[in-house]
């Protein structure tokens, strides 16, 4: 239906498609998306590989590429499932895709990429980007990113996104051809706007506040969790020493020997079990990290709104002052101080012809200004509507995902406890035999 019509789909100005779609999909969750790409296509990031090559400054570098596999959902014919199409992409290309989406759909809370560098590491975990565990978690994170985009009612219909998945060569050029970089707002402008908006939308202010809190609390949580993991690792691993000493001691004992020896084995098993435990917990950390980065995306939507609001206010202000000028010119009264006014007072009034010419110019400008203001108002309203719809969708997704994450954390803890009970019950049996 809404399958990659044209570039217009992507541009904010095109209201028909997006408005209608969004109206339909207002209460859509990922699961119920009507026409999202994910319903038509299986997508996965299947593998990761190391490559070496020359970079932009002609120096040798090693980097990782990820294999993206796609296959139409109804591809199975005559009981045979065809091999998927595939291409290789590196992390920087994912970044490019995301930047494009950010600029092109500023009213969407764009899903984040997995972290560029390993942060919140606890001591055993490697901070090295080439470490296989890190690469594996990144692979999973990239897949998650693609699935989120592909299941988004708006983003999934983007042509560039589709081409990212299907066109190995020349994709970069296609992205640059969209000219999205020119549309990007400068950081300075956005920063400026934050302070100079006169009538900020209360909802967006609250949302911005929330995104700050979310960012702060999730990063705190990740930090503390990493420290707890570190300590837990220490506790389990030291028990391994029991295994060694029990074994050595059992050599000189007659009656106690067997019991000690087998208890020692259980202590070794206990010490070894922490590796799996913490690997699973890393998955929980990744889920938290995703929402840490989502907070940033949320704030970006708020910032864009601030910018639009600021420009709207600036346009309104401009119009008002022009109308005032017209009035003054027409009635001859000077209410506002102006250099022109002063000089004309000093050096004599203008000629009626000059005044008329000025008035005419002003009239034109006012007409233009009114058009612009109307446009900007409409844009702003449109933006607010679209943004708020996606924000509602995001909120529901976040509540769902985080609740699931907490529940799966509890399940993990239950598994850890069960393993602990088993090991120590076994050890108890062995001690009994001593």
């Amino acid at each position, binding site marked *: 239906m809404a399958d990659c019509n044209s570039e217009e789909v992507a541009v904010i100005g095109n209201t028909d498609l997006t408005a209608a779609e969004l109206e339909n999909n207002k209460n859509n969750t990922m699961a119920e998306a009507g026409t999202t790409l994910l319903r038509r296509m299986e997508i996965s990031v299947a593998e990761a590989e190391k490559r070496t090559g020359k970079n932009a400054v002609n120096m040798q570098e090693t980097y990782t590429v990820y294999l993206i596999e796609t296959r139409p959902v109804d591809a199975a014919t005559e009981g045979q499932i065809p091999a998927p199409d595939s291409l290789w992409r590196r992390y920087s290309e994912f970044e490019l895709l995301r930047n494009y989406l950010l600029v092109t759909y500023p009213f969407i809370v764009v899903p984040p990429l997995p972290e560029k560098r390993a942060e919140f590491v606890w001591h055993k975990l490697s901070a090295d980007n080439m470490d296989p565990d890190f690469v594996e978690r990144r692979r999973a994170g990239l897949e998650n990113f693609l699935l989120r985009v592909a299941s988004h009612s708006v983003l999934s219909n983007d042509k560039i996104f589709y081409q990212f998945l299907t066109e190995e060569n020349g994709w970069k050029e296609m992205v640059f051809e969209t000219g999205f970089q020119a549309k990007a707002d400068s950081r300075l402008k956005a920063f400026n706007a934050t302070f100079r908006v006169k009538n900020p939308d209360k909802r967006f202010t609250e949302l911005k506040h929330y995104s700050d809190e979310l960012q702060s609390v999730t990063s705190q949580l990740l930090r503390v969790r990493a420290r707890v993991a570190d300590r837990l690792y220490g506790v389990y691993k030291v028990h391994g020493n029991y295994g060694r000493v029990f074994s050595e001691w059992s050599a000189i004992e007659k009656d106690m020997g067997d019991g000690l020896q087998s208890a020692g084995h259980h202590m070794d098993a206990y010490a070894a079990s922490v590796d799996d435990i913490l690997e699973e917990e890393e998955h929980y950390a990744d889920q938290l990290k995703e929402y840490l980065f989502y907070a940033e995306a949320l704030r970006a939507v708020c910032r864009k709104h601030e910018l639009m609001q600021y420009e709207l206010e600036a346009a309104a202000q401009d119009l008002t002052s022009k109308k005032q000028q017209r009035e003054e010119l027409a009635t001859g009264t000077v209410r506002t101080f102006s250099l022109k006014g002063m000089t004309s007072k000093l050096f004599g009034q203008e000629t009626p012809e000059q005044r008329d010419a000025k008035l005419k110019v002003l009239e034109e400008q006012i007409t233009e200004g009114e058009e612009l203001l109307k446009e900007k108002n409409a844009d702003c309203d449109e933006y607010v509507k679209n943004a708020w719809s996606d924000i509602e969708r995001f909120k529901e997704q976040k509540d769902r995902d985080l609740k699931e994450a907490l*529940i799966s954390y509890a399940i993990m803890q239950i598994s850890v406890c*069960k393993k602990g009970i088993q090991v120590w019950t076994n050890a108890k049996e062995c001690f009994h035999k001593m």
Partner: protein
Amino acid sequence: MSGITVDPAVSCAPAQEISADLSGQMLELDEDDDLEVFSKDSTLSDGSLFNASMPTSPASMVNQLEEDVDTKDIFITVDNPESHVTAIETFITYRVLTKTTRSEFDSCEYEVRRRYQDFLWLKGKLEEAHPTLIVHPLPEKFVMKGMVERFNDDFIETRRKALHKFLNRIADHPILSCSEDFKIFLTAQAWELTSHKKQGPGFLSRMGDTVRAVANTVRGVKNRPEEFATIQEYVDTFAQKITSLDRVTQRILKEQKEYLEELKEYGPVYTLWSGSEEELVEPLKGMAGCIDRCCKETEEQVNHLAESLVPALHEYVLCAETLKAVLRRRDNIQAEYETKNETLANKKADREADSKDLGFILGSFLGKNPEEAKQQRQQRLDVEIEELKEEIEKLEDKMECANNALKVDWSRWQRSMREDVKTAFLHTAEKNVDYYEKCLAVWESFLLSQGSGLDAESSREQPQAPEEMAKEASLQAT
């Protein structure tokens, strides 16, 4: 236990192994008294009667009680530490409460106050009287490293428990518990004890003993019997292993404490987060609650380690040193005997040489009447040889006694070591199972409260990743 001479060989065995005759005798004479004493105690005692030295798991407690009812006729508690400040020093005294039906005690209940020095004195006397018996170690004299104040509460409590165990182990020992010094320690008032301490071999004679002992050590024992050589080997390895275990356990305690510290910071972050959320308030608060409850359980586990396992293992580190000392003393006794034998051999050789007329030549040079001198010398040597033979006989007896005492006490020690170590680790394993069970309950109740519909069974499955869920969800939404 009036009327029964305590024969070391027999009474070292625990109650169950005592020969039928003897056990029958003991029960006839003392059963009622024992039971009475026991039941009297259970109402009077503050429960400290059944701590440190007695296992607290129900099964083993029953065993111990059965043993006690049959044979135990003396109950000692060490409690109530108090600080005493004098012009010269500050020290702690402990109340030592004794309840007994033994006839050599005039009364059946005694309460005295003793300080650490007094315990040291008692140990010294017992070791002096029974050099090859294994006396349970005292807690260490000096503070362990890392503690700032000598008299902090934990230190005093640990020491009190160890002193309690020390006295009870002596009371359980068939030979040591009959010691006069032990009796005086339990019953004498402070001034009586001081005056009694002053009796006995003086400082100089004790020094003499020490010098002799050192000399013998330097000389070394020549023919150590194989069984003692085996014991020596065992003790050396045991000392190493138990020291390692002590270190490992202390390290685990340290790591566990640090884990607890970090965990305490973890829960509050979830509470903080719940402040900015709406839908997620309940689950987040739930998480915080779970983590806080797990903190409490961890704290209990830490306390158990510190109060139970660490002291139990540390005790046996000290035991290893005691064993080494006992083996040394046994060696010294044998060395003394061997030395005397050598002296005898030399004297006999001299006597032999005399019957050849070599001494006659020397004697004539000194102007003595050769025949007379020779006779005098021979007589002197004969006397000396007779004396030596007597001494050697005594030493041989002493050595045989010492060796036998050690042999019997050795197997007694091994049994009680096994019991103690087994109990200590068993407790710790039980405590750990308990810890995990409690934490399990905490998290399971969290799951229930979230009404996730997931029960304990499904908790075995892997948690689903968002991408998997997305795939599933999108495929399901047809």
